[in-house]
């Protein structure tokens, strides 16, 4: 089947700003009148049925079983994780039946997995590019600990774990398949080093510090309107305080797991350095030294003001 419709990935380690980017895209498209109210509503209804992103209309997560079952023509839970990782990349893009706004797919998988035999875990045919969002792993650790209700120690170990994956249990079902990530650095490199898709690298820290510049880059990469006034309005409407207030107002965001107080919690950068102990920070710096350099995060040797990517 030929995929005529363009699509993009928003690839990130969890808790790195993926959802924020997708909320921004939805808002920008709305402000630019790219999607009719009916199209957005239909897309949201579709999403709601999938129980994934109730408040978003950007396209489903690439690890969605519902989409894979449809593409593979079988119940994906009848395959082992290893068998599945070998075929996931051949699944077709989920066609935007209702609206163009479903063209931006969230993905937490590393680009290849231990089981995918070198093949991409995500489909690449017809894909226009991948927005790779990175965030300092110390801050990711703090955010993960709130999201999963895990102690910080466990989150640091997770970031360092070469076998780390989401939904990895082979003992229960679920609406998403296993998403292999490996260490935080493995995840980042897998996306930055792949040769199949053009990449736009965004740092969470830069999105916070220079939202207009960074979200303009995002809009440009996705072929979306990027004139300054539209970007400014979309940035204002999707600022952290606005999203947080909206979450309170609506009584919770759909992607918030059980036991997690709120999805849009702090949004700050630098919490990792306040909350992780020196040993944990040193562990991350040591293990991720080259990735820190590549992303412009300070290392033991370069301690000082952060460089930008």
């Amino acid at each position, binding site marked *: 089947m030929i995929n005529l419709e363009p699509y993009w990935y928003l690839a990130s380690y969890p808790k790195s700003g993926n959802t924020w980017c997708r909320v921004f895209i939805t808002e920008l498209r709305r402000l630019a009148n790219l999607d009719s109210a009916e199209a957005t509503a239909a897309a949201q209804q579709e999403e709601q*049925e999938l129980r994934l992103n109730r408040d978003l209309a950007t396209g489903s997560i690439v690890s969605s079983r519902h989409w894979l079952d*449809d593409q593979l*023509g*079988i119940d994906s839970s009848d395959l082992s994780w290893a068998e599945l990782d070998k075929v996931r990349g051949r699944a077709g893009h989920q066609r935007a039946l209702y609206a163009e706004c479903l063209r931006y797919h969230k993905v937490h998988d590393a680009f290849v997995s231990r089981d995918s035999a070198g093949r991409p875990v995500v489909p690449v045919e017809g894909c226009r590019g991948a927005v790779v969002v990175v965030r300092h792993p110390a801050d990711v650790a703090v955010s993960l600990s709130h999201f999963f209700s895990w102690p910080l120690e466990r989150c640091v170990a997770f970031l360092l774990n070469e076998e780390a994956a989401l939904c990895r249990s082979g003992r*229960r079902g679920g609406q998403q398949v296993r998403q292999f990530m490996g260490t935080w650095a493995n995840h980042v490199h897998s996306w930055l080093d792949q040769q199949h898709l053009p990449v736009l690298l965004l740092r969470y820290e830069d999105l916070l510090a220079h939202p207009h510049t960074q979200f303009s880059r995002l809009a440009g990469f996705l072929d979306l309107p990027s004139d300054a006034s539209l970007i400014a309005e979309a940035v204002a409407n999707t600022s952290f305080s606005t999203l947080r207030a909206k979450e309170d107002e609506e*009584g919770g965001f759909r992607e918030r797991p059980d036991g997690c107080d709120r999805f849009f919690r702090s949004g700050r950068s630098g919490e990792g350095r306040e909350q992780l102990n020196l040993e944990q920070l040193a562990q991350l710096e040591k293990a991720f030294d080259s990735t820190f350099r590549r992303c412009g995060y300070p290392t033991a040797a370069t301690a000082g003001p952060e460089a930008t990517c």
Partner: protein
Amino acid sequence: MEGSSTLQRHQHHAFSLHWLSEGLPLPELPQAQRSASGETANASITIREEDPQHWPELAVGAHDTPFLQMARGDLRLSVEGIGRFRISNAEQIAWQRADQNVSDQDLRTFLLGSAVGALLIQRGMLVLHGNALERDGQAIVCLGHSGAGKSTLAYALMQQGWRLLADDLVAITPDGQVLPGIPRIKLWYDAARAFGLDPDVLPPIRQGMQKYLLLGEAIERAEQPCPLRALYLIRQQRRDSNDPDDSRISRISNQKRAALALRNQAFRPRFVRGLGQEGGNFIALARLQQSVPLAVLPTPRGIPDMQEWLQEQSLLSAAAQARSAGEDAE
């Protein structure tokens, strides 16, 4: 093996059809009974091994995927590392193993799901993705996507006296009868343990997987078609929800929402489109929606909580009696 006259013939009865499998045993399906009255099923389906080289070429279809090719009356499915299947003319399933290491069990796993589902769709049946249970000669159908907890719910209901009509594939006749289908339940390791079953003594759905088959003696099955009284969409409750509405059964009375919800619960809508059965399917769904109440079933997480909650429900009548949720609520 092809062409051999010594292939054992396995005869079964399911979905009110007679199934004849040449060479491949299908222990999940009930044995065909030769009744003294001479009553026979209304059609016979053949399942046999074939070399795909002998299959006619299919033009590329609008709904094809890299794993599926479809035309009216003909569906091809490839499962990497397992095998290939052709379902044709509403009466035959042909299969070929990817290699000799593929076990009968591996083949059956996909044959009894997608291939049988495709065949039922070719026969113009309304096929839903869920399970059907019977009590007092009447049926309910519980629907949900992969991972929604369908099988866990089916097993919990069976423990409360319901009998299993069908799991995974539910076929409904134009006059609203649920047909007895495949009487087996697939349970994940965690669910099996939570029900007090020992996974070590259960057959896995496939070698090496921690999902298990309950069949035969382990299943209380209903053997006759039953009138459908209620349709439920499974929604797992949030553990931290304080909203009492989240834990009550609510009717989906908005026609548009009910139609969309039901359409999304069809078994492999892509098969329906690719096989050119969308028109008939649309009419069958509309008829079903008019005659059977559809409600959201908010199942508590955790098996003990779910069992306790289910004991308080009267599922044959609850859907019809339930109030509608607000327009925006699920």
